[in-house]
């Protein structure tokens, strides 16, 4: 069973996978700000993708690792996880 990834969970993943500390409220306020401005690089995003894939036991589309902002990422991830859940 899969559930939607929330902003809180994304913030926690950014911390765990990339060492980036971001307040979930800040993330919500800046949901269209590029990941790079939070200090999250391509490897960090790949780490988050891998973590979500392993947690849910299913692959995410390759576009996930190319998402530039938190909103794009959550939209893509959640539409994938909820479709066919």
């Amino acid at each position, binding site marked *: 069973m899969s559930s939607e990834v929330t902003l809180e969970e994304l913030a926690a993943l950014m911390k765990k996978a*990339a*060492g*980036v*500390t971001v307040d979930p409220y800040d993330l919500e306020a800046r949901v269209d700000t590029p990941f790079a401005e939070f200090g999250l690089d391509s490897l*960090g995003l790949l*780490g988050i993708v*891998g973590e979500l*894939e*392993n947690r849910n036991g299913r692959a995410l589309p390759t576009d996930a690792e190319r998402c530039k902002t938190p909103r794009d990422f959550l939209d893509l991830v959640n539409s994938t996880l909820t479709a066919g859940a």
Partner: protein
Amino acid sequence: MSARATRRTAITGIGVVAPNGTDTETYWKSVREGLFVLDRITREGCGHLPLRVAGEVRGFDPSALIEETFLVQTDRFSHFAMAAAGAALKDAGLSDAAADSPYSVGVVTAAGSGGGEFGQRELQRLWGQGSRFVGPYQSIAWFYAASTGQISIRGGFKGPCGVVASDEAGGLDAVAHAARTVGRGTDVVVAGAAEAPLAPYSMVCQLGYPELSTAEDPARAYRPFTSAACGFVPAEGGAVLVVEDADRARGRGAEVRAVVAGHAATFTGASQWDRSREGLAHAIRGALDEAGCAPEEIDVVFADAMGVPEADRAEALALADALGPHGGRVPVTAPKTGIGRSYCGAPVLDVAAAVLAMEQGQIPPTPNVFDVCHDIDLVTSQARPAELRTALVLSRGLMGSNAALVLRRGH
């Protein structure tokens, strides 16, 4: 250093992370007092292994020194290296070194064990859970170049970047590599080595070294130059130096703490300690020649001190061969008997100690070593005051390399 006629290379900064001190001041105080910190290994998952004693770096908190984004993607050996590099740059007054001209600052590290703890964790994920559980940082944390790359990125240094994965003596090779890079025109090179070989699998890998001491009692585990010598004890940590064009250093008002005057490296075969006599003597002569230094000018020797009877004998004889009668008179010390050998990091720690010894006019003692059974004047028990203008640092590696480095006092 063949370009030394035109560019002299100075050491202007020192950063240390060692078992007897995680900053330079504490390290020097411990070295001068001959503090002995070898102890039973306490790192997780190591207690059952037949390697009992080592020099662990304890009380080191990387998160106080290094941004978390760097910490998550690096192994402990790079944490040490980044911390030591940061301290060395601060010491040199170059924390902002890259701001004006990034290409004028290079980085070179020596590495002998890589990111073993990080690597073991990822191997466990791969074999225990599956390939999809291997994280994205394995590709950049385990390999030997990790510390050079991260120091370059963290500092914004775009100058020549190098990595010599060359055995213990590679620590001295890295300092020489830096000096030669300065000789070719780069203003500053951040140079050194730090190791973290005390993870369970890394320790298993070291068990095959015939020179490894497996003694149970820390007090008896590493006693070079004595009849009780029974091998060496490994350690964590290392040191990073700022190596800089001496004229540039003076121009910016920085203190020239020492000059890297000469270096030479030779090879005489893995574990062939009798042959290392000739190899070490040849390296000493080469380093003296490059430094334009007579044997009698050497005021102190920081010995390799392998702790294997044949190796200790070879080193004592090499000093006699290369320095003549002076070889029996010059004070010799081996502070590493108090902290163990952190592979490539060990000789760089000795370079740091040699610079500090020249500055302070104190030859630090060789901790826990008594009843020397070779014809050398080994400084034991307590520091010996002396006017020190020139120091010779020696190192040998388990795979057969020998190196010698001559340092001159600054000013």
